[in-house]
């Protein structure tokens, strides 16, 4: 039951400096001593995480990584039907970019897309947050009912949503037309909403905001419920009004969520394609072009894949800044987890 004899002689460093037993010592001095490591015990754990990641990384690289590289390459090529058949493009340098940048339509489309995105994102965030704030004030039953309703909207496939909105604004039998007329907003009977791009985009915006609100609401609500009750109570005791509490306590705490939601909304709304495409029977007029439609039409309709790619690259670059903000915010949260 005793220590090994002779251990008194070892007298480690600390013996001479009693209170100076520091915990940090360079580890190098120890490595020279006997070390027997079984090779396979070390090697297996080291390789394991890479092996686990490989399938996922492989799929992503193949479907996302390589095509992304291809996209950029394509944007510098002429790739029409002829090239499609031959499976090979014809390098033309920055001609595609020059063409689109000098094309007034490109700038119109870009401007339209930016405006469209701004309006949609703003409406979505404001309305979504408002409903989230409403949710907080509800009793349990109503909260569940409203949330369920929102979830139903959220789950609706885009194609379905487009069709049903199209039905609602149908120029002959649309229920929205009838209701708006009855509410004296004007005469909308037999009104083709899509004849005028402004009203057409109005419908599309309503459709998109409608579909996007649930996600924003539920996310903001989840964030609101994570705000510690004590903080709010302390603020109230300190004399803050409801608005004050919201502005000083809740909003700052919710900032990360808003950053994420805003980034996601901008990215999604900037890329809107399906709604316009299906709403206009796959034949949108140029007044309805957004960036994604423009790129698609150039590629698959006119078979100018190179040009379409260039437009797409511009689109991606445009969103890179937003993406960066989003990723940084997510990593901040993720790392703390």
């Amino acid at each position, binding site marked *: 039951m005793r220590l090994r004899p002779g251990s008194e002689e070892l007298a480690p460093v600390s013996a001479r400096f009693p209170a100076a037993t520091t915990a940090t010592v360079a580890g190098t001095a120890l490595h020279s001593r006997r070390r027997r490591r079984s090779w396979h015990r070390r090697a297996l754990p080291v390789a394991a995480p890479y092996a686990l990641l490989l399938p*996922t990384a492989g799929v992503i690289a193949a479907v996302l990584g390589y095509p992304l590289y291809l996209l950029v390459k394509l944007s510098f090529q002429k790739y029409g039907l002829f090239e499609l058949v031959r499976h090979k493009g014809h390098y033309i340098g920055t001609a595609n970019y020059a063409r689109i940048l000098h094309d007034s339509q490109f700038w119109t489309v870009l401007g339209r897309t930016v405006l469209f995105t701004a309006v949609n994102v703003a409406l979505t965030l404001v309305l979504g947050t408002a409903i989230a704030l409403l949710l907080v004030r*509800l009793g349990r039953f109503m909260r569940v009912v409203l949330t369920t309703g929102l979830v139903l909207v959220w789950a609706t496939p885009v194609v379905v949503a487009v069709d049903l909105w199209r039905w609602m604004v149908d120029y002959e039998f649309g229920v929205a037309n009838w209701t708006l007329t009855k509410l004296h907003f004007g005469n909308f009977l037999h009104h083709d909403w899509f004849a005028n791009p402004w009203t057409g985009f109005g419908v599309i915006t309503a459709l998109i905001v409608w579909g996007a609100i649930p996600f924003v609401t539920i996310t903001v609500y989840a964030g609101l419920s994570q705000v510690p009750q004590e903080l709010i109570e302390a603020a109230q005791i300190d004399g803050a009004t409801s608005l004050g509490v919201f502005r000083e306590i809740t909003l700052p705490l919710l900032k990360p969520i808003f950053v994420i939601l805003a980034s996601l909304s901008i990215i999604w709304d900037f890329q809107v394609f399906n709604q316009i495409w299906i709403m206009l029977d796959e034949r949108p007029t140029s007044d309805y072009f957004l960036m994604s439609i423009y790129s698609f039409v150039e590629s698959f309709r006119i078979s100018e894949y190179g040009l379409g790619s260039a437009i797409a690259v511009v689109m991606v670059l445009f969103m890179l800044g937003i993406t960066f903000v989003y990723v940084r915010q997510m990593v901040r949260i993720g790392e703390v987890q």
Partner: protein
Amino acid sequence: MSGPRTLGSKIVANALAVVVLVVMLFPVYWMVATAFKPGRDVLTYTPKWFPTHPTLANFRDAMGRAYFWSDVKNSLIIVGVVVVLSLALAFLAALALAKFRFYGRKAFIVLIIGVQMVPLNALVIPLYILLSRVHQVDKLSGVIVMYLTFVLPFTVWTLRGFMLGVPRELEEAAMVDGTTRFGAFVRILLPLVAPGLVATSIFAFIQAWNEFLIAYVFLHEPSKQTLTVWLANFTTLRGTEWGPLMAGATLTALPVLFFFLLVQRRVAFGLTAGAVRG
């Protein structure tokens, strides 16, 4: 969160909630109502708010249309494979990210997040060119792989979050008790992240089922298409028959609505859990 403080504000809140509910849900209701109405009740200038003579005729019409059942089958196949594969792959990848320390881990996490931002529309072009080279256009397998790619990042991220929530000591106890490290993952970690698996599989299901653009671009044969493409083509085939169209739309939305109700708030919560507390 404090509940309403006065009866007055409570009434106002509830009234507002009802208004919001009606406004948001009305389109969905209208779609379903229309689907059950006979033709003459659909095509009226003054809307009939309730289907007073409900009928299944529209549904029969929609289901009888060309390629409906084959497209349903395609959707189911694609969705099924995507869900299973994404779960398997994501579980392994999440394990790596949550339970191991290795060089490049942070980079991969950033990649996972950032990759979700790459615009689908932009990639369709090179993907089409790529796949046409290897004659993989018009094949379900191509679509499946593409869907996997768009589903995996979120799935990996969510599962990782769930795994981080399981205390490390549970796995250590299992290892001392006699499992290998991987054995501990399967016997202890896997059952405990089951809710995460459910949430992500439902997410994958919904994403795959609802997707339009890729199916539209890559599947040309009507018999190979998915239900969403079928629905989109509905009107271009034969004018606009609203009754059957709404029926078709309802059918397309049905599975998703059903499963989404099961998972409810978990998805959004998973995305932002911890965001506030930081």
